[in-house]
């Protein structure tokens, strides 16, 4: 073989592989960025951060009119039963508000929203570091990337009725891995409650953007397992009061309050101090499904 033929061969082979890749990406389109996403049911399979970022470009605004914005403690909440709203759960593992804002901005760039359920919790505002996939994610990843191929492979396995692990619901709610509960009963480091100025500013900006797109805001304070909460009650209360002073006024549903104490004391609702078991999440879903319309009507 001559070198010229060799060069032509690699050019042709690269072109063929790229064309095949594009064809598969277009046909499967797991993030809804290449074809019309209306009416489709797309799920988060792997790398929830990137997946929700990409899904928020077209799929979320095309199919949903409301958002849950929070960290992993609200990742398995499913509020689709609330009448009058189609709610997508944008919660991601380990999120701070700067990361959440980058996801929400995708959806806001094309969509209008009726309701935003914003989690108010210290980890959302304690830092503004963007990491693990959200630091440099781009739309081009929907054309060819490791997580795209994993999504495609899982779609194929699911079509063949083979086991595929934990998938999110089409509305973004993702079941958490049901592991034996482990409670680390400690007083959190003061940095846990630190109000990072950049994060707080992002939170305020995000709320402003949501409101300018027609969304009503409801803050939700998630329920912390009572023995953990008791150890950190003072700092938590200070945090809540500070946030209420800083953030624009809006209804608050406080799952950290006395009404919800029985739930918080029941260890069977928790995987750890923050994350809910599936049964715990269902109870929260029911409670919020009743409370949110009441909060909005006040």
């Amino acid at each position, binding site marked *: *073989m*001559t*070198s*010229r*033929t*060799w*060069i032509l*061969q*690699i050019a042709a*082979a*690269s072109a063929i*592989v*790229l064309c095949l890749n594009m064809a598969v990406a277009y046909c499967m389109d797991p993030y809804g960025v290449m074809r019309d996403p209306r009416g489709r049911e797309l799920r988060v399979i*792997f*790398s929830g951060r*990137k997946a929700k970022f990409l899904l928020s470009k077209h799929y979320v605004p095309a199919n949903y009119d409301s958002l849950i914005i929070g960290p992993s403690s609200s990742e398995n909440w499913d509020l689709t039963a609330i009448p009058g709203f189609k709610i997508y759960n944008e919660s991601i593992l380990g999120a701070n508000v700067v990361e959440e804002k980058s996801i929400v901005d995708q959806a806001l760039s094309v969509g209008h929203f009726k309701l935003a359920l914003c989690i108010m919790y210290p980890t959302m505002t304690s830092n503004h570091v963007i990491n693990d*996939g959200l*630091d*440099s*994610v*781009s739309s*081009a*990843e929907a*054309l*060819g*990337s*490791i*997580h795209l*191929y*994993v999504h495609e492979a899982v779609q194929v396995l699911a079509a063949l009725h083979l086991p595929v692990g934990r998938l999110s619901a089409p509305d973004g709610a993702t079941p958490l891995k049901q592991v034996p509960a482990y409670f680390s009963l400690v007083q959190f480091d003061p940095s846990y409650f630190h109000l990072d100025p950049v994060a707080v500013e992002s939170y305020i900006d995000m709320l402003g953007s949501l409101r300018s797109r027609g969304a009503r805001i409801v803050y939700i304070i998630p329920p912390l397992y009572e023995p953990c909460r008791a150890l950190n009650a003072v700092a938590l209360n200070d945090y809540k009061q500070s946030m209420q002073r800083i953030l624009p006024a809006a209804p608050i549903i406080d799952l950290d309050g006395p009404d919800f104490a029985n739930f918080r004391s029941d260890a069977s609702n928790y995987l750890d101090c923050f994350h809910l078991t599936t049964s715990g999440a269902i109870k929260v879903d029911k409670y919020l499904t009743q409370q949110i319309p009441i909060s909005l009507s006040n």
Partner: protein
Amino acid sequence: MSFNSFKYILLFLPLVILLVNLARKLPLPRAPQLCILLASIYFYAYAQPAHLAYLLGSIIANWLIARWMGPTEEGPRKRIFLFGIVLNVTFLCLFKYVNFFFSNIPYLVHHHIQLPNLQFPLGISFFTLAQIMYLIECYEEMIPPSSLFDHATFVSFFPYVISGPIPRADRILHQFPALNARTSPSADVIARALYLFSMGLIKKVVLADAFSKAADYGFNSAKNMSAMEGWFFAASYALQLYFDFSGYSDMAIASALMLGVEIPRNFDAPFQSLSIIEFWQRWHITLSQFITTYLYTPILTSFKRATLRNASFATLTAMAIAGLWHGPSWTFVIFGLIHGVALVINQYWKKKKMSAVPDAVGWVLTMAVVAFANVFFRSPTLHFAVGYVSQMFNWHNAFGTANLSAMNGAGLMVGVYLIAQVVGAVLAVAGKSSETLARNFTPTALNAAATVAFTLGALIFLNSSISKPFVYFAF
């Protein structure tokens, strides 16, 4: 602009190759070289346009000094030459070392005297060394002073201006007539370059970044690791550095080849070295040659006799300077000194004709020195490095593996990183160097498949936004 970016791979490099080849068809005599010079200036200015002034200033100053030195007599000539060397060293120190020196002089520390921390221009360590070598070559009349056009093209040539390989003027300047000739590089050369570029790309984007995952985890968990993990993560960092820098060098050599210029190789399978002397003959070869020729030899010849003791002093001094060249920190000096001590022992062993060490023992000792020294290279402070080293000899927790099982994170990427780490380690220890493979390149279907797989595989990793910047960009 980084070599491992879509802008470089899919836009900048193909466009420059196209323009240079078009320029070859023009009746203008040196149009291809002009194209390369303009492309190099754009490439350099892309990240920090303000720093272009430093590069251009350094080029003009060194060109003037070489011209000035040219026709004068020996006495003034030597003074001009020494002035040029001092000027270059001062230029480098001004950006990299002044505050380091100040912070180590008790009187100045006491009075808090510091210059503003200047952000050092990209590639300053590399293009300053290249120009010091140029002045030496001119002074020793190995080459005549070149025109400003040639000198600027030589120094700013984009494949090596930021991170080497450090070129010698005589090896580059004589290629310019061929570069400006009407014939483009042959298909053989282009095929070899594509093959080498694909290997460099996969080394950087997949292998180096996989080892970086482990090394970063290890260095972030230094307080809680076992002795075995300490050595493992130090070795991971050594492999990260190797794949990162050799991958970069491969891409630099390949980029230059596509334009019809051959630049020197920088790595030759260093992790197969059986002694530390051999390691430095295979690791960052262009820097090693600079150290040997322009630091070690002058220091040694400054003594009346070349005794083993004098050679040891020259080695330690040269290696300490070479360590410091990497950055203004005692950690880099200690890194250089560790290698210096190992080299002295190796020299002593050879000179005294002591019994030969079995290959396996020699290899293990060499790798242990490399990994150990790299702890200082990677550590942000001397205090951190000492803490890390104490963990490497923590016999109370010698064989713990908790960090090893967590180093690659969670989920599917664990498998991807693990495969890359195993393949990388095997290639580093038992495989041929990519430069050797490229030199012996023959166009076969297997090579074609490998090139396509390496390139597309690396592009997928790049597009997954998990790639990291080159380590040597920091120097």
